[in-house]
């Protein structure tokens, strides 16, 4: 009996010295899940997504909206004639959670400074959620009959960005947004509260379709709610969007106040957004 015991002890002792493939090595607990990312780019057409940049990255943006409408016909080359509203912006990621952007539009020389910060990541197999906050201030330095430094030329805005994605293909964003002084030329100070909706369907790894609807819930609205749709191409660090919208404005505080033209009447402006990610 004792002989059997010794043999068992020997076998246990010998086997204890042998791990994976004859060694004692085992994989370490070093696994780190990649950052949760839903939408591919940091903004849709006009609405921001909850996506942020990697610390130290720089995002350059140039966007155009042609002022003529598609419905203007051949006289304005179906909306492709100039002039156009232009936005140039440069973003810098101060951390992996947030970045700051300085953007300028030639409409009333609107200069905006914006911070977007991711505040919640919820991993879920079916419906993961990202939540970000975006706040900013805009200064309109070219307003008729008004000094550039007039306090009425300054606007403030804040947005909460809820993003989710289904089956790695269909991304949805809900963006409640508040703009203070949304109509800078109005006699009284106005506000606008909208709830932007943003959907993007990723057809392939490089091609997707995108749509937005920004209904005004309360406060000032410039005649119509903004509707936009388009396609997005993604290559390397670039995003190219070709879009159509009833709103020809580009900077946050301006476009959230609503559109002059009617989507229902087909009064659409052609436009594009291009962003390029850079690393220094």
């Amino acid at each position, binding site marked *: 009996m004792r*002989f059997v015991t010794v043999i068992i002890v*020997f076998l246990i002792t010998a086997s204890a010295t042998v791990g994976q493939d004859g060694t004692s090595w085992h994989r370490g607990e070093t696994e*780190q899940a990649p*950052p949760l990312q839903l939408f591919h780019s940091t903004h849709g057409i006009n609405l921001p997504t909850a996506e942020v940049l990697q610390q130290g990255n720089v995002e350059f943006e140039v966007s155009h909206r042609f002022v003529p409408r598609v419905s203007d016909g051949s006289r304005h080359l179906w909306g492709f004639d100039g002039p156009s509203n232009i936005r140039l912006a440069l973003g810098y990621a101060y951390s992996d959670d947030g970045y700051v952007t300085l953007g300028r539009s030639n409409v009333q020389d609107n200069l905006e400074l914006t911070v977007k910060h991711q505040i919640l990541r919820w991993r879920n197999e079916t419906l993961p959620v990202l939540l970000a906050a975006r706040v900013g201030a805009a200064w309109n330095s070219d307003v008729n009959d008004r000094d550039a430094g007039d306090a009425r030329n300054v606007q403030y805005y804040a947005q909460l960005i809820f993003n989710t994605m289904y089956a790695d293909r269909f991304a949805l964003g809900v963006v409640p947004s508040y703009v203070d002084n949304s109509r800078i030329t109005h006699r009284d100070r106005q506000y606008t509260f909208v709830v932007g909706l943003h959907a993007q369907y990723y057809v392939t790894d490089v091609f997707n379709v995108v749509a937005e609807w920004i209904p005004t819930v309360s406060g000032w609205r410039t005649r119509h709610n903004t509707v936009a749709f388009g396609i997005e191409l993604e290559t390397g660090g670039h995003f190219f969007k070709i879009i159509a919208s009833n709103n020809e404005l580009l900077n946050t505080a301006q476009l959230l106040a609503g559109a002059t033209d009617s989507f229902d009447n087909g009064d659409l402006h052609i436009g594009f957004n291009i962003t390029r990610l850079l690393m220094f």
Partner: protein
Amino acid sequence: MRIPGLTISLAVASLCLVMQAAAQRSEYHVDRAAKNLVTFISDAPIEDFEGSTSKIDGYLAYDGESFTSNSDLYFEVDLRTLDTGIGLRNRHMREDYLHTKKYPYAKFRGKIIAATPSGDKTTVKVSGSMDIHGVKRSMDISGTIRPSGDRLRITTTFDVSLPHHDIEVPQFMFMKIDENMELVLDFTLKNVK
């Protein structure tokens, strides 16, 4: 209580065998606390780019003092942790090319088939199988081993063909990058027995 002589003899013999085997077999594991670095370099038409990670793990084992004696090695790199410096590019790499949800590790298993000491280092040739993206390919790789106390510092540089592992060659503005990625590894093993 009387213990049979045969039982004692067997127990002692068993212990000696285990101790002898332990003494003869050298085993090193990747020192996870060391400054390990795995870098890949991509030659693209407009700009080269690099990606790197410190998440390499694995072991090297051999009999006695000779690296080539009954050697056995296995190393793996956690591809989910590769960082090119741009978050979006990392995402593309993970999701569109390496498919790391399905194939999180690049693995190499093999043995040292030649070792040439020279000064404070030994140049070795390793033969084995590289498993990336679920596709295994036989590979011979040269590298150097620099012993330092109970540590071994491993350095090696070699190319991996993306098509050989069924990895689509990424395009940038309709121009493809080089289908061969240069890998540069510099990591440290520590003796565990």
